[in-house]
């Protein structure tokens, strides 16, 4: 097995230590930045939905602020954002390189994208359901959690999937400017040293990971459409 691997991708085997640590670094960036993006984008998406004109807590000031900030950061290409945020990143985490230094720009890059996805998912919840909940005496928080978030779960899962996949793309770009991870491994050890097998393996690894995410996302979205993920049946007799 080892011999066979060495015959088809000799350089990957030679740099296997570096390869695994790159995978790990990408995984770390993905999970940590993803966690922040999930929470921040979720909060902003909900804020946009409820503070919108005619929303359950209409507030033009909050809406305009979140809306404009989201638009600004969405319109900056990620590579520019990376260098633009270097001073801020240094100030927040003390360094602008490595996994630690990549988290800040990754969160800034992915959050606006996810915010819009969440906003779109929540906009799909029919206003009638909101009205019915209000008529039953639900307050604003109740409506957000028991109606908006609850009813849009399949759409939110799709949003998370798309954002996760685009976040992987961002981590490799961050790798190009010193963040480490699979992106920098492919560039520094594959492209720069003319080891095509390293580039190929990086492509395959990313392909597998993205397909896995997409598959899991699709399955969960299907399983939560018009039903709870796990049925909990009530005894009626």
């Amino acid at each position, binding site marked *: 097995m080892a011999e066979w691997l060495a015959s088809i991708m000799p350089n990957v085997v030679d740099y296997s230590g570096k390869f695994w640590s790159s995978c790990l670094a990408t995984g770390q960036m993905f999970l940590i930045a993803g966690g922040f993006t999930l929470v921040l984008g979720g909060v902003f998406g909900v804020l946009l939905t409820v503070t919108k004109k005619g929303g359950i807590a209409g507030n033009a000031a909050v809406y305009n602020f979140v809306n404009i900030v989201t638009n600004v950061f969405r319109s900056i290409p990620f590579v520019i954002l990376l260098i633009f945020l270097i001073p801020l990143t240094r100030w927040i985490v003390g360094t602008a390189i490595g996994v630690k230094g990549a988290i800040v720009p990754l969160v800034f890059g992915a959050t606006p994208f996810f915010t819009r996805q969440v906003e779109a998912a929540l906009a799909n919840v029919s206003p*009638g359901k909101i009205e019915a909940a*209000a008529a*039953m005496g639900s307050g604003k928080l109740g409506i957000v959690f*028991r109606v908006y978030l609850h009813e849009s779960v399949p759409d939110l899962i799709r949003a998370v999937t798309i954002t996760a996949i685009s976040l992987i793309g961002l981590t490799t770009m961050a790798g190009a400017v010193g963040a480490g991870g699979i992106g920098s491994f492919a560039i520094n050890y594959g492209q720069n040293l003319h080891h095509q097998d390293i580039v190929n393996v990086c492509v395959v690894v990313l392909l597998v990971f993205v397909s896995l995410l997409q598959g899991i996302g699709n399955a969960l979205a299907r399983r939560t459409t*018009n*039903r709870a993920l796990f049925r909990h049946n*009530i005894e009626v007799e």
Partner: protein
Amino acid sequence: MIELQSLYKSFAGPEGVIRAVEDVSLEIREGDVYGIVGYSGAGKSTLVRCINLLERPDAGTLRVKGFGTVRFESGRAFCRQEGSEAETALSEKQLRQLRGSMGMIFQHFNLLDRSSVFENISYPLRHSGLSKAAIRARVLELLDLVDLREKANAYPSELSGGQKQRVAIARALANNPRILLSDEATSALDPDATESILRLLKELNRRLGLTIVLITHEMAVVKSICSKVAVMESGRVVEQGGVYEVFSAPQAAITRKFVDSSSGLGRINKLIEEQSEVLSGGGTLIRCTYNKDCVGEALISEVSRLYGVNMNILLGSLELLQGSPLGGLIVLVGGDMEKRRAAIQHLCENNVIVEVIEHG
């Protein structure tokens, strides 16, 4: 039970201000099934939402038995709860209490698609301090009330329209409200389901003494379950009263239109418009409305015999409103002019409401 006094509500629309509710005063008594009819855009949906404050009226007063009085002044709400002297700005808590005292059902059911029937019905009960066992017992009781116990674990996508509306009714009644607001609850249902939902509402009204405020554009709905009715047109209530009184002697043109659309007598206008052959014989075209006092008598043949006039019946209908018969006929009266007049006079003397549609 519910009293509205000079309620106003307007919206800023793209083409200026839309006056959805204009100076509406209504009194809905306990145990009434109160119908609010009108064509779409008449303001009935807004009006019913002013009762549970899904819409906040601009001005007017709303009194709800068991809760208190809410007064609206330039869009602000002041509340005096029952048993209290002080009037304060309506708080979030009071608003939720008011809404909790009435249930509401909708045209499109508005159930949570990702929740089972059981979870939908328990929605208003959860987070209310009730124990799990108490919630379960109450939901099962409600399921029995709407006859859906076997569907407790089904999801809305697995139910028919009528079943969904039953779930919505159970959910609306979870907190034992004394009032049920129904917004076109049968408009999206097929005739069978409509029938069964109306029967259920009627039964709930009778068994629980539930006061029902029902808005609809379908006369059939009003005829089958309402005891009182208000007719709305461009934000105003143009006519109100007992269903029989309003529909046996409609005053407003819009009410007449509604009555005609359901009885089929409105078709005469089409015949006149098309200059149909049935009218070519000439004569006086009259419309007779028989109320419960004279519907049993054979007046047409009597008149025909007594005065020697030809009574050509073009259209006829007999409806039951609140169990009382209401008849309508479109008759072409032929013969000598004097005799026609005498014949019509005779009908009038026998409590038939006669209108001359056309002299020919």
